[in-house]
């Protein structure tokens, strides 16, 4: 992942000393940061062997599990915040994963690549090809990203499911967050960051 500005931004929503579950935690970078900056008690879920080893090396709690199988092991409201960064689009059923996140966590933080970004649109509209960008650098046939959505798509899903959007932030290499939010984030945001509750 080349651009992880999302990790810096979402930290402001995490309360000090809270319990955090990070789904698809990767090499544990975020949980390690949160342990230092927020003293959270964190657990990361991951099912990639190399990333699990990287997470162990990073000193975080890593749980090997496939999120697509649900979060049955976790009881309702057992975490203050459930986080999933840049992985919603990899899930078999992102909508069900969101439901599970909001069942297990009192609040959720989700970040995802915005498929409505102008670069993606340009690829599809002008070149007639599925977008391959710096952030999404794989071809349609070998990408793990199987469920893309735009900022607008995501907000429609939240509305349909009665999910409350507490806050959001938009990231792009060219534009700072404030101007992005005012000027059509659905077109200019590369990464969308949402803070949610039931």
């Amino acid at each position: 992942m080349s651009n992880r500005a999302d990790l810096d931004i979402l930290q402001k929503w995490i309360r000090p000393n809270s319990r955090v579950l990070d789904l698809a935690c990767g090499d544990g970078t975020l949980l390690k940061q949160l342990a230092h900056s927020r003293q959270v008690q964190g657990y990361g879920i991951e099912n990639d062997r190399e990333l699990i080893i990287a997470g162990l090396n990073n000193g975080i709690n890593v749980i090997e599990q496939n999120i697509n199988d649900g979060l049955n092991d976790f009881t309702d409201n057992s975490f203050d915040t459930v986080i999933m960064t840049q992985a919603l689009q990899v899930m078999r059923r992102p909508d069900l994963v969101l439901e599970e996140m909001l069942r297990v966590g009192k609040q959720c933080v989700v970040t995802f690549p915005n498929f409505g970004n102008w670069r993606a649109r340009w690829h599809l509209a002008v070149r007639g090809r599925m977008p391959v960008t710096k952030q999404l650098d794989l071809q349609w046939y070998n990408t793990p990203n199987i469920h893309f959505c735009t900022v607008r798509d995501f907000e429609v899903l939240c509305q349909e499911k009665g999910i409350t959007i507490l806050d959001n932030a938009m990231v792009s290499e060219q534009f700072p967050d404030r101007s992005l939010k005012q000027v059509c984030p659905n077109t200019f945001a590369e990464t969308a960051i949402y803070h949610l509750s039931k």
Partner: protein
Amino acid sequence: MPESIPKNSVGLVTPQTMHFDTPLELDSGHTLNSYEMVYETYGELNADKSNAILICHALSGTHHAAGYHSMEDKKPGWWETCIGPGKPIDTNRFFVVCPNNIGGCHGSTGPNHINPETGKYWGPDFPPLRVRDWVRSQACLADKLGIDQWAAVVGGSLGGMQVMRWSLEYPERLRHAVVIASAMNLTAQNIAFNEVARTAIRSDDDFNDGYFLEKDTIPRKGLALARMVGHLTYLTDDLMGSKFGRELRTGDFERGAYNPVQFQVESYLQYQGEKFSGSFDANTYIMLTRVLDYFDLAREYNNDPVQAFSHAQCKFFVVSFTTDWRFSPERSQEIKNALISAGKDVSYAEIETPQGHDAFLLPIDSYIRVFNAYMQRIAGEIES
């Protein structure tokens, strides 16, 4: 026999014996007035005694976890895959202690020793033990070795049960608990397998109600059968299929002739049974399976694993193997879930492998690598 000792082995090792004169109060209400523990150590204890690792052995394990006793040894210690220079339990960084549990039959006080009060073999009259008794005796050994706090207590299967018990009985005396292919209690099926093993031993005429040493007999047939049943359950159908298939050792199926066959798998099981029956005490086997059956981590905590683990202070690493059907991944997940609910630090790895329960002893790459990553973290904490 090793022609030369491999570089990543601890090499030649010599067991040591510690004698204890302070009586050991057992959970059964009995007291062992004095006892001995045989143990091996590998690596060097550092100046502040912070790099000590306790290895808890499983049913058929001993104090001989790594290295060779002599150049004539055919095989190294039982956990050679994981203990040694550059291995997960890295003897360049850790000081490793592995005792033979009391009640065992490889040197520590047990049924095949003389009861000093009667002058006869303990035999079946050796006091019944629980995991907690072992943990208590291991703590006494730690006292004698001057180790106030283990960097980690590590064990697989029945060894993992000891590790979990350590975390509750002496929470301040360990920083990490590594629980591999274990469970918080046995399932009915597991207890049933143990009862088959015990029945096999008891039904051997040479068992003599457990007084076989006095009668100068050994219930080898019963022990071998017990081991064969046990060993079977540590493997899997797939593994046995790929290892033996329907290969024949002797005989054939030619028509018009009768040449009785022996399948390779039969020969293998017979060999395992015979080997074991020549080196294990029948009373110890019966007692160890009882210890397994009785173990229930949360019994004294309202049968609530979360309440039980709330007493722990260490960090945990839990490992399971996908095809282990005696201590299945689900049983390890119960441990992991209870620890998370109790707010304890825990990492969990589920290793995909065809080897079944035996996997925890084998050099499986992904297992060794995650185990190594966790152990190096512990070493890093000590050295930073």
